[in-house]
């Protein structure tokens, strides 16, 4: 029976900004359907790692595949099947949440019939018509989560999604991760918030741009 390619395979991926190495010799393998938790302090390289997997930036050295497709050669295809919930919410301040999401749907060729359901799911139905400029951090993050839910990508990447959020908003993020898990998607979640991440099937630690060596856990053997 054919086995689907692993969600992520990285070999010696290094990313450098000027003289500063943000990610050093990352070797990683993530199987489909896994929920990987990445722990590490600020500056450990979690963001860089996620952004490389999302192909938002390219590696300086090393190579890798995402969903079986080469990081550099098949960027466009990887992007269609990956969503990154990053530091920045990537919203247009002068448009409403609904308009921002409609725009995303159009860009990705998605139908908008589930839009209202998703807005309801993240608790934004009431304010969805107002300009994002007036939103709190929690509300903005909910829009980003809504975006991820509408797209329901094969690989969902979350980079510090909980920062600046109240408990309720954090719950919204967790619900989205669970939704993705239930749908058989692969999730990679990076956070230094120790109270979150319980739904992970696997954890790795990062420090100084490196992925720290792991001991095999029972679920991997």
């Amino acid at each position, binding site marked *: 029976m054919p086995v689907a390619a692993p969600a992520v395979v990285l070999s010696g991926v*290094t*990313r*450098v*900004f*000027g*003289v500063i*190495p943000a990610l*050093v*010799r990352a070797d990683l393998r993530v199987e489909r359907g896994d929920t990987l938790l990445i722990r590490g302090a600020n500056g450990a390289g979690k963001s860089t790692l996620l952004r490389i997997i999302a192909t938002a*930036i*390219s*590696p*300086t*050295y090393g190579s890798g595949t995402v969903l079986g497709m080469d990081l550099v050669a098949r960027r466009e295809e990887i992007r269609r099947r990956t969503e990154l919930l990053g530091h920045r919410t990537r919203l247009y301040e002068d448009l409403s949440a609904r308009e921002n999401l409609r725009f995303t749907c159009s860009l990705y060729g998605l139908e908008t019939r589930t839009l209202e359901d998703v807005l309801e799911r993240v608790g934004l139905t009431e304010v969805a018509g107002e300009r994002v400029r007036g939103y709190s951090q929690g509300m903005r993050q909910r829009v980003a989560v809504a975006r991820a839910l509408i797209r329901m990508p094969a690989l969902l990447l979350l980079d510090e999604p909980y920062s600046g959020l109240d408990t309720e908003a954090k719950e919204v993020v967790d619900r989205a991760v669970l939704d993705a898990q239930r749908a058989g998607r692969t999730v990679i979640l990076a956070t230094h918030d120790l109270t979150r991440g319980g739904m992970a099937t696997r954890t790795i630690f990062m420090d100084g741009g490196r992925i720290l060596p792991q001991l095999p856990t029972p679920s991997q053997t």
Partner: protein
Amino acid sequence: MGSAERMMGKLTARRGERVLGWLTLAALATSAVMSLVIAPPDAEQRNAQRLMYIHVPSAWLAYLAFAVVFLSSIGYLRTKRTRWDRLAAASAEVGVLFTALAIALGSIWGKPIWGTWWTWDPRLTTTAILLLIYVGYLAVRKLPDSPARRARWSAVVGIVGFLDVPIVHLSVTWWRSLHQGPTVRLLGESTIAPAMLAALLVGVGAFTLLYLYLVTLRLRVGRLEDRVLAEALSPRVGQSPESLLAEAGEVVGGG
């Protein structure tokens, strides 16, 4: 590559550079003698006309250098190899000097002929705009912190800028032709005496050698810069500088 071969490579590169340097000096000296002594003074402009022997070559190099920027920019975008970016940057830095020189000389030459420092002569005006485009190119190089982005951004400026120059020239020439300005052209209508033509050609050749020499120097500095970067990066990344330089197709310090 064995260390002996590498050393030979460095030696010949330096020797080649030095030979080029001496050749340039010789050519410039010859050009100076021909322009100042052998060529006769112009009938109308007298000795002021001798400025042509450095103005015209400078202008020629200003445009040649930018053509090199254009071609290497394309080369970089297609191959992503640092050597093209290094060449583009080197040619731009040397080219901007020749451009500024051409404008200054053009202005100085024009003063006794036209009576003013500037008359919006189409060729000089286009060269002035070329200077601004060069400056824009060099300014863009200072913006990003990632060398790959710097290379990409400046390559775009180099390509678009070069394509713009002919259009600028056309527009300025038409614009200028509407006015009955000074009809005395710098180069005059009369056929040029053989001695003057020879001096001019030698001048162009000498300046071209000067351009090549300066670019070679600048390329060497560029390679050293990349080497320094690789060595700074090496301990933090746990790879030898050589492998860093080789591995990413010579792109050091940026995806």
